[in-house]
């Protein structure tokens, strides 16, 4: 019983991280129809920034979000204007090639700059607390809390603000949005800024829990693809649910399959991906795919 509860808690905590990790990927895909293959690399940049701020300025990785978010917003905004806006309405293969190129460039730049030595952020509070017989790792619990907070903020932003509404409008029907006077390119740039800032924030939060190295990105990109397929495009509740399903499944498999469980945990996400594509291609939450029909 205890083990079951523990596995559930660990899975949900992992799922919370997955959910915030996937937001940037899912929203960019949903709004622009761009599959960002450099997603994991932006996560890696965030992790390195947190490491640098921790190592050289003694800054806590969660406090460093205050600096990382605006900086990476700027990076995303500029990247969109300089590069991605040129390919948004082109065939999908172009966007794949460009983002793939960006991912290789970033990973190798970081390799040259920082070598591929694994880096670590050793925060002092990486212990745990016991609550009702269940162990809550402190860092992962904080990540979970921050992840929920970020998701609520993003949800409110998209639902309530004028800018958020224009982002949704652009996602639903680009032509109509243009007709009513939405500056699509600007909306895209802001969306990319937000998404890349969020991705980097996820990386920064991840930094105290695992080793940081230049080639850590691609597995996260693959997981982001799975979760997006699970939860549907650009939907925050979908991302949350998709993340939870993947997190809980991975932890359950590794807890309950003796001997090789952890190996299977990694395979799980791909098995899930295939199952979903076969059984429910519209995602578990169903129905809504806000991708622009013209981009198809």
């Amino acid at each position, binding site marked *: 019983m*205890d083990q079951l509860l523990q596995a559930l808690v660990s899975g949900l905590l992992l799922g919370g991280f997955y959910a915030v990790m996937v937001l940037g990927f899912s929203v960019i895909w949903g709004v622009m129809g761009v599959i960002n293959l450099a997603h994991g690399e932006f996560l890696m940049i965030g992790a390195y920034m947190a490491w640098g701020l921790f190592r050289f300025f003694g800054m806590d990785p969660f406090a460093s979000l205050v600096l990382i978010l605006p900086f990476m917003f700027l990076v995303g905004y500029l990247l969109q204007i300089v590069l991605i806006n040129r390919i948004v309405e082109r065939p999908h293969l172009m966007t794949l090639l460009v983002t793939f190129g960006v991912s290789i460039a970033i990973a190798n730049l970081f390799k040259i700059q920082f070598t591929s030595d694994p880096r670590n952020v*050793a925060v002092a509070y990486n212990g745990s607390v016991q609550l009702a017989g269940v162990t809550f*790792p402190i860092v992962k619990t904080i990540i979970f809390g921050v992840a929920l907070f970020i998701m609520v903020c993003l949800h409110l932003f998209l639902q309530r603000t004028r800018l958020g509404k224009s982002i949704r409008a652009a996602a639903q029907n680009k032509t109509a949005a243009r007709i009513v006077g939405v500056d699509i390119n600007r909306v895209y740039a802001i969306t990319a800024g937000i998404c890349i800032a969020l991705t980097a924030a996820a990386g920064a939060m991840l930094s105290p829990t695992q080793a940081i190295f230049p080639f850590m990105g691609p597995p996260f990109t*693959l997981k982001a693809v799975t979760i997006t397929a699970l939860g549907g495009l650009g939907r925050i509740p979908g991302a949350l649910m998709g993340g939870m399903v993947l997190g809980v499944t991975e932890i359950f498999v590794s807890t309950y399959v003796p001997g090789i469980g*952890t190996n299977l945990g990694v395979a799980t996400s791909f098995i899930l991906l295939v199952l979903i*594509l076969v059984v429910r291609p519209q995602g578990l939450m169903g129905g809504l795919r806000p991708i622009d029909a013209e981009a198809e």
Partner: protein
Amino acid sequence: MRNILSQLSLLLIASLLLTACALAPPAPVDEPAAAAPSADEEKIIYLGAAVSETGKFSREGRDTRQGYGLWLDWVNNEYGGIKVGDDRYKVELIMYDDEGDPDTAARLVEKLINEDRVDFLLGPYSSFLTQSASAIAEKYNKIMIEGNGAAEPLFERGFQNLFAVLTPAGNYTRSALQLLAEKGAQSVVIAYEDTAFPTSVANGAQHWAAEYGLEVLGVETYPVNVADVSGIMSKFKELDPDVFVGGGHFNDAVLFIRAAKELDFNPKAMVITVGPSNPKLIEEVGVDTEYVIGPTQWEASMSYADDYFGTAAEYAASYEDLWGEPPTYQAAESTATALALHLAIEQAASLDTDSVRAALRSLDVVTFYGPINFDEKGRNAGKPMGAIQIQDGEILVVAPSNAAVTELNYPAPPWKDR
């Protein structure tokens, strides 16, 4: 439906591209200088090695490169070249980056043999890569001498050309488990990466645990490049063992220690391969490394010495002069690897593969790294394994008793009392 299909094909393309990333051709790390064509010019022995500069083994790969590099620097500049009969040969070492990938390692070894025409091969870092690299060396009948592949199956393939200066993996945990059993430990759990070297370590650990009367409560494996081991650690927490044995590489040591603390998993001792004997672990993880025990092939405080590098401590000093950091045992065994080849070539007084192989077989020397004496399978039969424990941020030898500098601290206090 069209929509779904195009989504599907997109996903396919995306995953293909990501896979392609892993298969991209490697960039050469060290272009070989043009070979000297004329016989009047300096005589040169060409050595080749594929060693990780990037990828999972980048950390240990660098130690390996630097270990080879120290010997290279010494043999060319100080020793004046390898003596072969009456001639002195300078040495040129060609190294490529295998990216931690066994296929790449195999391809690069083939390139070293066929294109760069090297005379002898030095091993890569890790058993995982040595497995594929040594198969190519065997195919072309080139001697590969290595100091970083300790897995037992490497030596069960009947190869004639593979020699290893290090203690084989099955014995890695022996002295640590023996000592822990003497201190009263009763039970043990084992987690290991499902590749050659950790598997041999884990099989050895199970063997020695039984030998010393420790009950094995659980055994778990995990894949290469694992990002999180908390699933394994929470399972082990339920079992409440006295000793945790982790078989993996540097990065895994970080994950094990972190997950144990996070989950409040309190074994009385943690024995982890590879990581603990590297000072970088203390630097990266900090005080949580206290009490962690690790097997060690070599430490600078051990009492071995030779005529070439002096004592182990003197070797450590010259290494630090050259590279600006103290040597890990991976670095020392890499230097010892090159030194063993050097001695065999001098003994054979020839560059011929058969003569050098015979010389390696009969080699029986003591070096700064320990005794080197190859058995019929190419393993170094002469050298025992040591164990270290991290105490007050220092790496101190606790076993075997004749090399120990301090007592083992056992049991380790639970995380919340530290």
